[in-house]
C-alpha cells in the first residue's frame, strides 16, 4: 500500500508518543516519506494522548489523519474516539488487557492483544506498548521489523543497552 495512516491512542504515560515516533523513524530509515503529529496541550492531563503517523511513498501534504488505515487503541476512551475514523476494512489494534468492550463497527479487521498479560509474562509490564508495536508492524507492514530493531538499537544504547533484548523480544511476543 502506498500510504499508511496510523493513529495510536491511549492514556498519557502509556508510551503512545514514543511508539509513533519509532515507526516514523523506521520509515525514514527506509527512505519513505514520514510525518508524526502529537495531540498536545493541557487537555492531555485528564484525557487521552494520541499521535498520528503517516508513512508513504509520496510527499505527504498533511500530517493530520482524516481517514486512518489503522488505529491502535490502548484504552477504552481511545477506542470510542478513534474507531470512527478508520476507513472501511481498516485495521484496529486493541489492548484487550484494558479494553473489555468491542468496537461498534463490523467492517474492520480487528486484532485483540492482551498486551499487559504478555508483557507480564516477559517479566516487565512496561513493554506492553512494544508488544502492540510488534503487532502493528507485523499486520500492517507499515515499516519492516528490522527497521524498528535498528531504531531500538539507537534508543537503547549506553546505559539503557540492557533493555534492548527485552524490547526486541516484546516486539515478536504476540502471536495472532
Amino acid at each position, binding site marked *: 500500500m502506498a500510504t499508511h495512516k496510523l493513529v495510536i491512542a491511549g492514556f498519557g504515560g502509556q508510551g503512545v508518543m514514543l511508539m509513533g*515516533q519509532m515507526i*516514523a*523513524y523506521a520509515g*525514514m530509515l527506509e527512505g519513505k*516519506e*514520514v*510525518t*508524526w*503529529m*502529537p495531540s*498536545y*496541550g*493541557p487537555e492531555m492531563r485528564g484525557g487521552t494522548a494520541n499521535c498520528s503517523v503517516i508513512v508513504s511513498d509520496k510527499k*505527504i*501534504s*498533511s*500530517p*493530520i489523519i*482524516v481517514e486512518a488505515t489503522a488505529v491502535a487503541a490502548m484504552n477504552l476512551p481511545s477506542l470510542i474516539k478513534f474507531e470512527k475514523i478508520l476507513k472501511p476494512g481498516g485495521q484496529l489494534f486493541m489492548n484487550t488487557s484494558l479494553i473489555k468492550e468491542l468496537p461498534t463497527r463490523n467492517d474492520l479487521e480487528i486484532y485483540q492483544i492482551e498486551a499487559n498479560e504478555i508483557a507480564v509474562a516477559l517479566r516487565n509490564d512496561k513493554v506492553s506498548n512494544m508488544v502492540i508495536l510488534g503487532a502493528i508492524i507485523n499486520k500492517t507492514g507499515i515499516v519492516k521489523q528490522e527497521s524498528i530493531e535498528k531504531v531500538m538499537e539507537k534508543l537503547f544504547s549506553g546505559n539503557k543497552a540492557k533493555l534492548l533484548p527485552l524490547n526486541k523480544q516484546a516486539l515478536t511476543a504476540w502471536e495472532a
Partner: protein
Amino acid sequence: MSEKVLMKGNEAFAEAAIRSGCRYYFGYPITPQNEIPEYMSRELPKVGGSFVQAESELAAISMAYGGAVAGGRVFVSSSSPGIALMQEGFSFLCSTEIPLVILNVSRGGPGVGGIQPGQADYYQATRGGGNGDYHLIVFAPSSIQEAVDMMEMAFRVAEEYRNPVMILADGLIGQMMEPVVLPNPIPDAVREGILKAKPWALTGTKEGRPHNVVKSLYLKPEELENRIMEMDLKYQKAKEQLVRYETNRLEEAEVVLVAYGSTARIAEEAMELLAEEGIQAGLIRPISLWPFPYEAFDKIPEKVKAVISVELSRGQMMDDVKIGSKGRFPVGLSSRVGGILITPPEIAADVKKVLGVER
C-alpha cells in the same frame, strides 16, 4: 549538508536558529511553542550563548531589543496572544531599525482561544497592531524543512534591512515531526563578523568614536517625516527584492487556490482530488506574506473562473487576494477555524460550490 534527522518542528527551528549564528534567545512559555525555549535553555549555554526566561512577552521583546541593539543575533518566539503583547515592541523595533527574527507558532484565537493550530494571525503579522507606518517582513514556511532553510536568510534579511523579520508558522509544523536536513552551522568567522558589520550597535565607545545613539522619538515633525520616508524607501526596496512565492499549474487552471504555510500542503492534496474529478485547480503559495506577492496574480490566466483563499481564518488573507486579483475574478473563501485543520475534501467541496459544479 548534514544527514536527515527526524525532529519536532519547534526543536528544528531552535537548532536552525543556533546554526544560523543566533546566540541570544529571550522568551516566555506559551503553548504550542514551548519546545523552543526549552531547547534554547539547554543548548545555548553549550555554544556560549544566553537564554533568559523573561517575565512576560513584553519583557521578552524588550530583552530581545536590548540584545540586538548591543549587536547580537537575537531570536524570539511566541504564539498568538504572546505576539499580541509584542506589538508595541515591534513598532518600536522598526522605528529604531533594529534587526531580529521573531517566530510565531500560531494557534487559534481570538483572545485566549485554543492551543490548536490556526492562521488567524495573518492581519497581526502583515498589518500589525503597533502604531505608525512600519512593516514586519513576514515569511510563512509550509514545512519544517522550509522553515529551517529560511532561518539563516531571515537573519540576513533582518540585518540587511535593519528590520525585524517574522516567520509565521503554526502549531502544526511546530508540533509535528518530519525528516529534516539541518543547515550547516555558519562558520565562526562569519558569525564573529556579524557584530563588526553593525557600526550602529551599542558596544561602548571605548572613547575611540562618537557615542552611538539608537532612538525612536523625533519631536520635530519634519525630522520624523524624514525618518519615515527613509524607512519607506527601504520598504519599497523590500517589495522589489523580497517577494517569494510558488505557483503550481496556473496555466491549465480554471480555478486558483491561494494558500500559505501548512494550509498550502493541504490545498495541494485538494488539487489532486479535484483533478480526479476533472477540475483543474492551480495554486499560488505566498511564501513572503509581507511583501505580498501581488504580481503572482498577474499570471493567472483570464479564463480562470474564481480565485479562492484557503486559510484557517475568516478571510484575512482574502484582502490581499482581492488586491492582487484587481477585480478580474470573483474571490472566494475556503476556511476552517478554531484549531480545526481544513481537509482536502472540504477544500474541494468549497471549490465546487464556488464553481457551481454539481456534486
